[in-house]
């Protein structure tokens, strides 16, 4: 019989413990590959989820405007920065068993808790609009009407949340996320010079030409494409939902590293894929709207490559719809105190969690279908918004990862701190520079 003093065991506990039993069994039998298979997920999804619609367009714009010289190694470095901060989020989740939003709320008070969650909801809504745009844009290349494309995007989120199990949701999202590597195929079809790629990676040259404003904006956009607040919320909360413990931190690091490698590969591949537009001096200023990049690339890399690029945009938007909606749902559930915030709960047990998850997707879809909406302005500002909100998110992350009361033996080491503070400083400077540059441009001061 259950002791009256014992807390009630929920269905969420039972679902999680079934997943954990498999982990315990694999570990006790020394099956390393099975263990990795069971524990991989939040890191891969955070990284590949961030290779979303606007990010891929940002990488493509970098390749098309500036070639591979500077941006290929730059993007690789931004992914290394993403690894550093995402590893901290994973570690925080594994040690505390609490989500990022929940920890900010409890450790820094309701003001910062609500502000962080509020920031996240606004930024995520804007970003989700851009994901729906990417899906619509990609599908339009194949002649799919906008209403059908938007309907598919919303249905995908609804379907993914219908299982009542974190494991099912994660594996569905991961299966979809691997198609991000479509961009590698597009890059191969662009027939890049291996020597030029090697030269770019080794020397960061040729340096970009053009105006300071354009360069600053695309630099901030690329940073916003790899290091964003939703990733922190998502990976920490997903690690908790998955049931990671301090014993799993090694596999959690590997998971994050695999995600970093795959996402960096796809991101760099997109720069390479779009580089023929730079080589052939194609005017790229109007390519971010409509099916621009895919159509512009068709005469240069062939119809299959262009079709794959369009398909890649659909995939990038679709995976991000799942992960960004989930990060919003986690944050909303966590700051609402007693509200459930787990995919291991049913809709009846966690109504706010599922309402936030699906509601964000529906709202984003509705915005895209409103006639006359300036979608291009929204798309162009999404990554910038993420970049300027990132310093606050990084500050909380670093404070919590250095909190010995919270982390015990898993507190940040010297290297993690050095890199973490350097990344926070770089993101702050880049975000401020981009925001000021964009503002000056908006008021007519160039």
């Amino acid at each position: 019989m259950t002791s009256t003093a014992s807390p009630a065991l929920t269905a969420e506990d039972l679902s999680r413990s079934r997943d954990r039993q498999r982990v315990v069994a694999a570990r006790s039998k020394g099956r390393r590959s099975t263990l990795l298979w069971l524990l991989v997920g939040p890191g891969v999804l955070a990284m590949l989820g961030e290779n979303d619609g606007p990010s891929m367009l940002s990488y493509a714009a970098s390749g098309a405007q500036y070639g591979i010289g500077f941006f290929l190694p730059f993007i690789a470095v931004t992914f290394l920065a993403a690894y550093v901060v995402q590893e901290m989020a994973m570690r925080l989740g594994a040690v505390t068993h609490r989500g990022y939003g929940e920890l900010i709320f409890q450790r820094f008070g309701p003001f910062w808790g609500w502000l962080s969650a509020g920031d996240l909801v606004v930024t995520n809504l804007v970003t989700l609009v851009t994901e729906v745009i990417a899906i619509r844009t990609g599908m339009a290349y194949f002649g799919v009407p906008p209403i059908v494309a938007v309907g598919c995007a919303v249905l995908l989120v609804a379907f993914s949340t219908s299982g009542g199990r974190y494991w099912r949701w994660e594996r569905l999202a991961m299966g979809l996320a691997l198609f991000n590597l479509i961009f590698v195929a597009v890059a191969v079809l662009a027939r890049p010079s291996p020597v030029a790629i090697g030269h770019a990676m080794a020397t960061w040259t040729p340096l970009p030409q053009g105006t300071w404003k354009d360069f600053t904006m695309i630099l901030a956009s690329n940073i916003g494409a790899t290091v964003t607040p939703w990733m922190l919320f998502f990976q920490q909360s997903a690690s908790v939902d998955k049931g990671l413990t301090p014993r799993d931190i090694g596999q959690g690091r590997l998971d994050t590293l695999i995600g970093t490698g795959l996402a960096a590969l796809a991101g760099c591949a997109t720069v390479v894929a779009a580089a023929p537009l730079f080589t052939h001096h194609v005017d790229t200023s109007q390519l971010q709207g409509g099916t621009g990049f895919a159509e512009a690339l068709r005469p240069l890399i062939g119809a299959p490559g262009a079709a794959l690029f369009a398909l890649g945009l659909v995939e990038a938007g679709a995976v991000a719809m799942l992960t960004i909606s989930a990060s919003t749902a986690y944050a909303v559930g966590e700051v609402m105190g007693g509200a459930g915030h787990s995919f291991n709960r049913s809709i009846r047990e966690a109504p706010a969690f599922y309402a936030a998850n699906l509601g964000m997707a529906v709202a984003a879809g509705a915005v895209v279908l409103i006639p006359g909406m300036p979608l291009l302005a929204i798309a162009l500002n999404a990554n910038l918004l993420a970049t300027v909100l990132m310093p606050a998110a990084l500050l909380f992350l670093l404070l919590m990862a250095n909190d010995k009361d919270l982390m015990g033996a898993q507190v940040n080491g010297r290297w993690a701190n050095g890199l973490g503070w350097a990344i926070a400083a770089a993101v702050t400077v880049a975000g401020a520079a981009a925001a000021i540059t964009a503002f000056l441009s908006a008021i007519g001061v160039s």
Partner: protein
Amino acid sequence: MHWPDIHRRSFGHPDEELVSALEPDQIVAAASHPLPRARLGRAANAALWAVRVFVLLITVLVVYTFFAGLSAPS
């Protein structure tokens, strides 16, 4: 730790075998206990104030730029 040491609590649930795969503080009831507020040093407090000012200033710029972009022809 400065909050109740939930690691050491025994839950005594009948599904002991199933639950043993979870850490005690992983169980929903245990994880629902709020943690105490962090004790922040001077540097952390200063950093939080700096972030407040940064977020406020930059948000004003971004929001203005965003709406200026909305009114521009697409």
